[in-house]
């Protein structure tokens, strides 16, 4: 650990005012494609796992786009495939997981799924970074945090050990760790959960990323520490202009800090919408159900509206719409035919047959509306009455 005590390399900037992006964390814009195309473009992503109970289709045809500099939310409950989606983008899906042929992941114009292992490692390090959920598990317990950051710096940039060590200190300072020199010599177990998550953010930033995928970055943290870490991430994002894909089960987290949101259920995106539109009027019954089920600290309810039943196993997704067994509006068609993502107005789209019904009734006028079949069939009007929305 003598590196850290080496003389500072000559190019190290000192005396920078707080808040200015330091050389260590400023994104390296060279090599970015011409503006216009999305930064990340996922199309028809499918990931399967061979299990004892059959093939689990964990991610089943996901389309998702992140533009440069924007924060996008990916929301869903456990088992919906949101984390596997993140891993697939980074090509970190491990055996027995398989990314199906025909899946496409384009990042900065390059097809990540077609890259050789050596080349994907270079992308993963340099422009695309992951902030994992469990900081305790993601850090090496027998290396100091300073040397772990320096290791990442050296893996991706041609710098000397001493330079890498200095960069580690700069990064620790940038993520708000007080007394960085002392902390750099600490091991993971000597740090609190919030500190460990800051270290992981520092490691992610060491790559000067253009896109950070944050997978439940604060789930393991207390609420006050969570707020602190998210503010930090927000601040760094604004300062460095990177894009963030924020993956979480917590609707409230994405409400406050994203521009657009994807909601996943049973391996599929079931709704995509600008954040304000989604919270103002969720189009998919699952999104509506989730919002009604969350107790709110600002608006207490007499009784929560629970979504009946539970998420089916990934080895046995229901036929038709995957949400139909739990959906209060399901009718015959929902049980047999899977809906596509249909436009829902206001830049939203949702995977729900009600939208098609809604459009038809809209086109044909109120007289021509056809009653759906089935004992518990509902019309879009009932949805509106029930607090949902069909534009």
């Amino acid at each position, binding site marked *: 650990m003598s590196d850290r005590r080496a003389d500072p390399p000559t190019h190290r900037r000192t005396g920078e005012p707080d808040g200015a992006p330091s050389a260590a964390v400023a994104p390296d814009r060279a090599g970015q494609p011409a503006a216009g195309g999305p930064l990340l473009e996922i199309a028809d992503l499918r990931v399967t796992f061979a299990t004892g109970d059959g093939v689990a289709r964990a991610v089943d045809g996901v389309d998702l786009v992140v533009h440069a500099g924007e924060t996008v939310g990916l929301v869903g409950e456990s088992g919906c495939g949101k984390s596997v989606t993140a891993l697939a983008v980074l090509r970190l899906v491990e055996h027995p997981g398989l990314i199906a042929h025909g899946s496409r992941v384009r990042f900065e114009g390059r097809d990540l799924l077609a890259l050789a292992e050596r080349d994907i490692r270079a992308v993963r390090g340099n422009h695309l970074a992951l902030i994992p959920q469990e900081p305790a598990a993601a850090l090496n317990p027998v290396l100091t945090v300073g040397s772990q950051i320096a290791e990442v710096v050296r893996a991706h940039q041609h710098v000397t050990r001493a330079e890498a060590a200095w960069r580690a200190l700069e990064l620790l300072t940038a993520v708000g760790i007080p007394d960085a020199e002392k902390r750099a010599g600490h091991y993971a177990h000597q740090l609190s959960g919030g500190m460990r998550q800051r270290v992981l953010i520092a490691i992610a930033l060491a790559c000067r990323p253009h896109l950070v995928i944050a997978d439940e970055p604060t789930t393991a943290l207390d609420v006050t*520490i969570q707020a602190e870490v998210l503010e930090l991430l927000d601040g760094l994002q604004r300062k460095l202009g990177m894009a963030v894909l924020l993956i979480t089960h917590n609707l409230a987290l994405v409400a406050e800090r994203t521009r657009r949101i994807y909601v996943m259920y049973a391996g599929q995106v079931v709704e995509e919408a600008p954040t304000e539109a989604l919270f103002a009027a969720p189009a998919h019954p699952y999104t509506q159900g989730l919002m009604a089920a969350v107790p709110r600290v600002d608006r207490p309810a007499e009784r929560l509206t629970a979504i009946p039943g539970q998420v089916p196993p990934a080895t046995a997704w229901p036929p038709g719409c995957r949400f139909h067994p739990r959906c209060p509006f399901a009718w015959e068609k929902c049980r047999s035919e899977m809906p596509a993502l249909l436009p829902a107005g206001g830049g939203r789209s949702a995977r729900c047959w009600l939208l098609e019904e809604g459009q038809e009734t809209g086109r044909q006028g109120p007289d021509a509306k056809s009653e759906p079949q089935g004992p518990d069939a509902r019309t879009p009007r009932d949805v509106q009455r029930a607090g949902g929305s069909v534009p």
Partner: protein
Amino acid sequence: MTDPVRRSAGTPVRPLLEVADLVVHFTRRTGLFGTQRETVQAVNGVSFAIGRRETLGLVGESGCGKTTLARAVLRLVERTSGTVRFDGYDMAALAPAELRRARRRLQIVFQDPYASLNPRMTIGRAVREGLEVHRIARGAEADRRVRSLLEEVGLPPESADAYPHEFSGGQRQRAGIARALAVEPELLVCDEPVSALDVSVQAQVLNLLADLQARRGLSYLFISHDLAVVRHIAPRVAVMYLGRIVEEGPAEALFAAPRHPYTQALLSAVPVPDPTTKRSRIVLPGDPPSPVHPPAGCPFHPRCPHPAKDQTCLSLRPELTAPSPGHRVACHKA
């Protein structure tokens, strides 16, 4: 034989559970060879009361001592000082047989029912065990009761033959609740009962707990780190920080106008699922201090953002006082 624990049931004025000045300290060995000892001051003088059919919500972040407090109430850990009275009887003074009888009336629901249910025991047997240990029912009568308990918590009766691993998280928590209910308790200590569940299932379990309270007249000590959950279930809420209650009051008043700077910061940190409300967030500096070396004076003073913080806060520990009836707060400046 008179049963000292049973005898006084029904006295209207006395709270069901009364905790006074409860202190729980642990000594642990530290250092490379375990040669040093340090004292963890997990619970440091906590007082509260819960009446019949009442719910007290207890919120706090990890390490604040809320789980230790729950365990001390049940005498699953021994207290260092202070008293826990259940229905008027000092839990610490009970003989083993009396303690067993008291525990029948005082049950706990854990965060992770997977860890608290025996993986090699069917759900039916797990629920039945309490019935038999406490000699409530045997044979066919026990079978009948097990089925009706499972139905009451929303599980199909045939799930009695299933093992815990065959259940989803929500179903396991239902089984854990059925098991606690088997012995017909009066008070349920719920320690983070919905924290491991997805929101759609969490709502099911919260609604179940509300229904059971209405039907059986249960009292709850409901412990959670999630303020929204506590606000939903508890009409009265206590906030813990570093082994002490720093504020306690009616949920409505406490959430609308928190008085303690810690409660204010905690509430401001909770994200709200509404992109149109922009709230100012009080970000606390640093991490909570270690309960091994709690600071002198007010336990919150090293992180306290109150503008009027002064020497008193650094040296003198504030007592819980009641600025308005039923609302207690431990702050020199509140």
